[in-house]
């Protein structure tokens, strides 16, 4: 039987080698043609066309417009709103990343213990991930709202004046960071939990024999071996935070003024409310560049750390 099988497989191998030769030219390109067409039409073409529009003064609806060279770019760099919005976008990106990673790692360390409530806690922390960011924004709006918000119910219970947290430009960007963290900390937690479970117990046992303290074990074993998970989480959270849109619309709509506007919401307003399509496209290019540079820089920086560790 075995002999027959090996013979058969040998025969198969030679035939398949022959077939490979005759089929080598075929890329089976028709199998990915539909996907390629859709991606070209809805992603690549608009992206390239956006570069072109950024050199025009198009208002978003009329048939005619002029090419204005670098005017929109000059305008963008001279516009104080640009820098406010870039600053907010960086705050959303970097703030959420720091918070999500610290809290996510903390939760993972806690749930890495064999507790009875572990599955329940994990489910509740993860729950917001599957809810629309817009709805999550509204849910927190019910908490922070000036009139009838749950936070002010507590403040008024203690006889203090209600606060308008969402209308205060000094506070509301941080609320947005908090809500975004609350929503997606579950993903960071799960990635860290998987990372922790892949660390062999032998390391900790060896460290115990050497009399290492809990902090030493955390610093010298856990963190270096978690480096791949840290890289993934940081890159993921930075990209997510820099692109933030829905939560801002739900909580503050970018206001008051442009105080809590991110690049995405700013661009949206330029196009739909201010009919400034050429300028909106220019802002889009800046946003793409910022996201690209920061996420690539983070990726390379932490990848190098991984190799060192």
């Amino acid at each position: 039987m075995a002999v027959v099988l090996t013979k058969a497989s040998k025969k198969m191998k030679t035939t398949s080698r022959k077939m490979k030769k005759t089929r080598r030219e075929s890329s089976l390109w028709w199998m990915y043609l539909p996907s390629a067409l859709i991606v070209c039409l809805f992603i690549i073409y608009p992206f390239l066309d956006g570069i072109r529009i950024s050199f025009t003064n198009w208002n978003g609806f009329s048939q005619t417009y002029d090419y204005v060279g670098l005017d929109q770019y000059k305008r963008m760099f001279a516009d104080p709103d640009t820098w406010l919005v870039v600053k907010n976008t960086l705050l959303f990106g970097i703030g959420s990343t720091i918070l999500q990673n610290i809290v996510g790692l903390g939760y993972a360390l806690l749930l890495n213990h064999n507790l009875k409530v572990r599955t329940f806690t994990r489910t509740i922390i993860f729950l917001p991930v599957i809810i629309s960011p817009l709805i999550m924004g509204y849910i927190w709006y019910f908490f922070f709202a000036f009139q009838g918000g749950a936070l002010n119910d507590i403040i008024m219970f203690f006889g203090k004046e209600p606060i308008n947290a969402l209308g205060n430009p000094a506070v509301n960007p941080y609320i947005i960071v908090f809500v975004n963290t609350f929503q997606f900390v579950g993903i960071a937690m799960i990635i860290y939990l998987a990372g922790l479970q892949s660390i062999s117990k032998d390391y900790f046992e060896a460290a115990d024999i050497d009399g290492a303290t809990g902090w030493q074990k955390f610093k010298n074993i856990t963190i270096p071996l978690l480096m791949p998970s840290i890289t993934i989480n940081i890159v993921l959270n930075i990209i997510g935070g820099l692109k933030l849109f829905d939560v801002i619309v739900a909580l503050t709509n970018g206001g008051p003024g442009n105080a809590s506007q991110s690049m995405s919401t700013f661009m949206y307003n330029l196009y739909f409310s201010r009919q400034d399509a050429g300028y909106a496209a220019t802002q889009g290019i800046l946003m793409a560049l910022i996201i690209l540079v920061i996420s690539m820089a983070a990726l390379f920086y932490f990848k190098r750390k991984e190799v060192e560790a």
Partner: protein
Amino acid sequence: MGQLSSRTKWLLTALALLITAFHLIPFYILITTSLKKTGDFTSKWSFPDYFDTENFALAWEHANLGNAFVNTAIITILSAVLLIFFGSMSAYALARRTTKLNKYMYFLFVGVMVIPPLTALVPLYRLVVDIGLMNTHLVAILNNVAAFMPLTIFLYAGFIRSTIPKELEEAAKLDGASTLGVFFKVVFPLLKPITATVLIISSVYIWNDYQFAIFFLQDSSVQTLTVALAGFFGQNVSQLNLVAAAALMASLPMVIVFLFLQRFFIEGLAAGSVKG
């Protein structure tokens, strides 16, 4: 980790419960808010002493949620089906035939992932108006398929390369099956685990999508849940109880599916984001 003393275990359990309670706060407030009648200004931390479902009936009707549910379901299901069908097929060709053209195409598909979709908003909107697809299910479906195609191909191609033995297909080929026949009869059934991941990721994100839906689906007849809810919020800022009822109803289906299939959801969403 090592053995914990029972005292430490109790402390950690208490801490875990405290964190859980904190994470439940917004949902608790959502529920109490949605149950209060208009004009009931009692604290949002207490349940009303009556039971009234009028908010839900009013919100359902005024936010046009029934219609929005149907629209969202159509768009989500068709997008996911197209993504799985075309994505798996594309990945199969790209993973199995390493010709020069395919290497370039794979690089192109995966490279597209670095373009943040929203940055091309202005030309995309113009394109959709030009081809006359504004306010149609089709444009939302095509756009979602385009947005998730790179990740889908990436996930399928990785899975095919690492887990599907080539010999299997070659044996089927010898039996005279066509390329498509081999793919759908032999390969596709073996892709089940990664198909589940793709299905979960795309359904969750497409069901919850707001930033594209708000651009392309402004007409009330084609509105999805998020767009309908945003419009309803705009009209009822002073009646948060109605908005809360609408928000609760809009998120309930996904929450229920999640609670039943949570292991798959947690694994799928984490795997998808790690590899993406």
